[in-house]
């Protein structure tokens, strides 16, 4: 609603953005991720006020009974003006929610903002609840969740059940983002089974499918010379793949990937093992966006083509980016989600 305001709140220290959304900016007063990464659950499912940026990021590939594909996004971002909780209106913790539903020909997006400290938005670790306004991701714990969101022209209400363990990326959850060593804490729950109701302008739709939750926090996840990233989460017939490439100002890339077996065993791949190359572009909101990719991980014999279900899945929010469901063909078959940031 107040895109401009929030934009400046998110990146208060840089109007000329350093990397996508000012994520390449360093501020010494915030904590930085340390190695080895030691997690304490369920506490770490909750917020980490001493880090500048954090998110609870859920994407879901769904199908109606007739096979119509849908994509769904529920995201809660936390950004801190200062590394402390604070109380009431003066709390420096600010919250932003993005929710979206993608069909083959429509993309519904809505955005919410809230101040921390007054109860309008927040996350508690146990029992687990993440909320902003009427949107919530709530359960007794992370394994059983109910997820709701609504906007002016859509709403959804989903039940989620985790069928596998948490997955830790990089070095047991310490995910390096650049050659200089910028890193974030990063783990996922990629094994949700989902069932629920989508409410769209044309009526309600019963859907089911899978979902993938990402948890990540950091204070400076990007290096100053990184402009944005292309992130893939693929659910394939033989396992799941998370891979991303960070685009650097000198036209080089920094890549990272995690291969996840159906029972939750992981293999982390360093820079260079995973590759993603744009195959074709479309114009979205005046920007040139690659919505078809060739993705390879030779070590696993993966060489697939990734294509957007709806190439106009543009998140026209205060911090704009592309996020939408994809289909996978080639050596492996499956579905997934693609996120592309930093395209100006």
């Amino acid at each position, binding site marked *: 609603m*107040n895109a401009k305001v929030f934009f400046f*709140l998110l990146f208060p220290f*840089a109007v000329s953005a350093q990397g996508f959304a000012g994520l390449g900016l360093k501020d010494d007063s915030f904590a930085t991720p340390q190695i080895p990464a030691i997690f304490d659950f369920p506490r770490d499912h909750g917020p980490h006020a001493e880090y500048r940026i954090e998110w609870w990021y859920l994407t879901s590939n769904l199908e109606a009974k007739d096979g119509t594909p849908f994509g769904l996004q529920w995201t809660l971002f936390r950004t801190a003006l200062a590394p402390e909780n604070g109380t009431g*209106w*003066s709390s420096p913790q600010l919250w932003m929610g993005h929710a979206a539903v993608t069909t083959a020909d429509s993309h519904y997006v809505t955005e919410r903002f809230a101040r921390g400290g007054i109860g309008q938005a927040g996350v508690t670790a146990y029992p687990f609840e993440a909320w902003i*306004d*009427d949107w919530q991701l709530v359960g007794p714990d992370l394994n059983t969740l109910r997820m709701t969101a609504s906007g002016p022209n859509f*709403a959804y209400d989903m039940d989620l059940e985790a069928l596998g363990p948490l997955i830790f990326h990089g070095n047991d959850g310490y995910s390096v983002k650049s050659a200089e060593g910028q890193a974030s804490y990063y783990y996922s729950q990629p094994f949700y089974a989902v069932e629920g109701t989508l409410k769209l302008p044309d009526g309600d739709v019963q859907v089911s499918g899978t979902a993938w939750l990402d948890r990540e926090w950091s204070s400076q996840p990007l290096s100053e010379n990184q402009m944005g990233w292309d992130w893939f989460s693929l659910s394939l017939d033989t396992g799941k793949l998370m891979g991303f490439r960070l685009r650097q100002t000198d036209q080089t890339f920094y890549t990272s990937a995690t291969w996840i077996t159906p029972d939750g065993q992981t293999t982390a791949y360093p820079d260079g093992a995973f590759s993603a190359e744009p195959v074709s572009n479309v114009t979205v909101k005046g920007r040139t966006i690659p919505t078809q990719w060739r993705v390879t991980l030779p070590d696993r014999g993966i060489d697939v083509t990734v294509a957007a279900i709806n190439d106009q899945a543009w998140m026209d929010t205060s911090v704009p980016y592309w996020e939408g469901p994809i289909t996978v063909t080639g050596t492996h078959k499956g579905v997934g989600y693609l996120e592309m940031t930093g395209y100006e």
Partner: protein
Amino acid sequence: MRRPSLTMTGLHALLSHWWRNPIQLFTLVVGLSLATALWSGVQAVNAEARASYDAAAATLGEGEFEQITSDSGMILQADYVRLRRSGWLVSPVVEGQLDNARLIGLDPLTAPNGLGPVDMSNGQLTVDMLTSGVFFARQETLDLLGEYDISLVQSPDVAPGVILTDVGTAQRLLEMDGFLSRLIVAPAQPMNQVLFTDVTPKLTLRTPQNGTDVARLTDSFHLNLTAFGLLSFAVGIFIVHGAIGLAFEQRRPVIRTLRALGFPLRRLMALIAVELLALSLIAGAIGVGLGYIIAAALLTDVAATISGLYGASVSSTLQFRPEWWLSSMVIAVAGTGMAAATSLFQLSRMPLLASARPRAWAMQAGRGRMYQAGVAFGLLILAALLGLVGSGLIAGFGMLAALLIGAALALPVVLDRVLAFGTSRAKSVIIEWFWADTRQQLPGLSLALMALLLAMATNVGVSTMVSSFRLTFTGFLDQRLASEFYVYANDADQAAELQIFLTPRVDKVLPIQSVDQDIRGLPSEIYGPTAHATYRDNWLFLQSAPKAWARIESGEGVAINEQLARRGDIAIGDKITIAGKLFDVLGIYGDYGNPIGQVIVTEALFERLFPDSRALQFGLRMDPVDVPALTNELRNSFGLAETNMINQAGIKAFSLNVFERTFNVTGALNILTLAVAGFAILMSLLTLATMRLPQLAPVWAQGLTRARLGRIEIIRAVLLALLTAAFALPLGLALAWTLLAIVNVEAFGWRLPMYLFPMAYLRLAVFAMIAAILAALWPSYKLARTRPADLLKVFSNER
């Protein structure tokens, strides 16, 4: 030695003309610059006026959004969070008195308009605002405050007497921790929402108050200012046209010589085009700068606005906006281009050895004039037709344009006829010659005179429009905001208590009762105000039956607003049905800006018709000085929210002040327009001066002194100015009438009454005469000082 190219030679010859005649160059550049400056000045003033009116409207109107309020005047912050978590997109407001200012706290993250007029593009400022606290207010408001550990940011767009800040800061300073004053409801709400009454049954959801009346009124003023801007554009184009036309006329000999020497016509025309483009760009740039200075000099908020140019902290009203200087440059360049196109066309058809035969020129102009008269007549007929049968805003503006252009084209034709009549009626030979010679000069002066006509007509039109508007608006404010203070009760019980509480404390409590009812199928409100001199003194009728107020007070009939009269096609004497009974319509009053119909009946009649209705609203007549104290008392005793109390006296004083400022600025602009038109006359006279020697020399030879010829020259300028003024007055009134009675009705559905201001017109005519005299002074002096040798050259055999 390198042989200079043909182009360079030609350019040198063309430019050397300016070098030899720097005054002509000066007048050309100044003429172009002034025309540009006028336009950009008007644009700046318009922008400023708009900003001021928006601020006034923001203060007058209680917001365009639905509001959630509480009977107690306080809303629990927990209720706010509960509403948000139930899917209600609402935004908190905390407001109250801080020292002598009104402190308004908003949450920029959820407020539908953010912080309204405050610019949040400074990231650090935003962070400070959300954490340590920032006050945004006008300097004069900030001056009212005591010491607070809060950064102060001067924001000229915030309404006077108001401080904007973060909701948290406001809560802390007003000691309202955990409480909010009211909630603003965002226009777009999500699909899934819990029923409002299920969330917070004690709170009230209110539709937006009728504060938009004033916004609509100012919309009308905006439109009129736009029309003024277009008129000044036309004046500017005319002046540019005149300046360029004269520049061609002056250089005719150079051009003729160049062509006679074999210079290719095409290249000559290209050279001139390039030269004029360069000149127009230079002059345009000067004009933009000049316009800015003019605007800055005319506006009172200059200090703030100039600092806004350099200090990045706040937005300001007077900025070098690109659309501003771009449009000004377009005036200069397009005006030059249009003028140059005709002149170049004539140049291309000019016989190689055409000699200056002034009378022949006049005769040819005479043939052209027939055609011109035809076009002018056609346009004036079109304007009349549009006025009679046209409908819609486009027709209104079309009528304005047809009227303006038609009148401008008609001017030389009319003047020619008047001067011919004067010639035929002259008794003395000098007077006969004076008329005849004036007539002969008409073609050379007509562009300048058209500019003068447009300038004067615009001035008449705009001063009529603006002054009519002021009278109407002040009348409207007196009518609508007649009471010094208004209080809205939350329910009938509170209203009863309030009435008991207020009666001993103020001069008079005027309960305002109203119900909504359809009249002839149109949604309307029925008002039953207490009979009091306040109404009789302040409600002016547009039309009324004899003794209307007395008869309305006796319950015989009712008064309705203009909107209802127009839409329901109701005239004086017609009958309307209220609560099943028939009543005569005895008066129709102006109700500027109100979107719906309204009927006024007496209090006694109202109580008879609607016995169950109770007044929730009270107008309080009292000493304005006591309003702040009473506000505090009501807040403390009844917990009334700020929105339940409206200090109309303060609002009225502020809005009148805003209007006053705009009117002063308009007055100053009027003088400027005339000055520019006067300059156009000066340029024309100077140019004609050299061409006129052959016409004057025989008169001189036959016994008239040069001094006398000079004096006649001044009288001629005055005569032409007076004739033009006589023509401009009806045109200006027609313009004003079109704006008020056609354009405004088409745009807003109500007609602004037109008032006449004879003294203002007289003053304008005097100004125009002074401008003409000043313009003629120098050419006349030059003529009186012409050496006999120069006059004798006319007679020399080797011409």
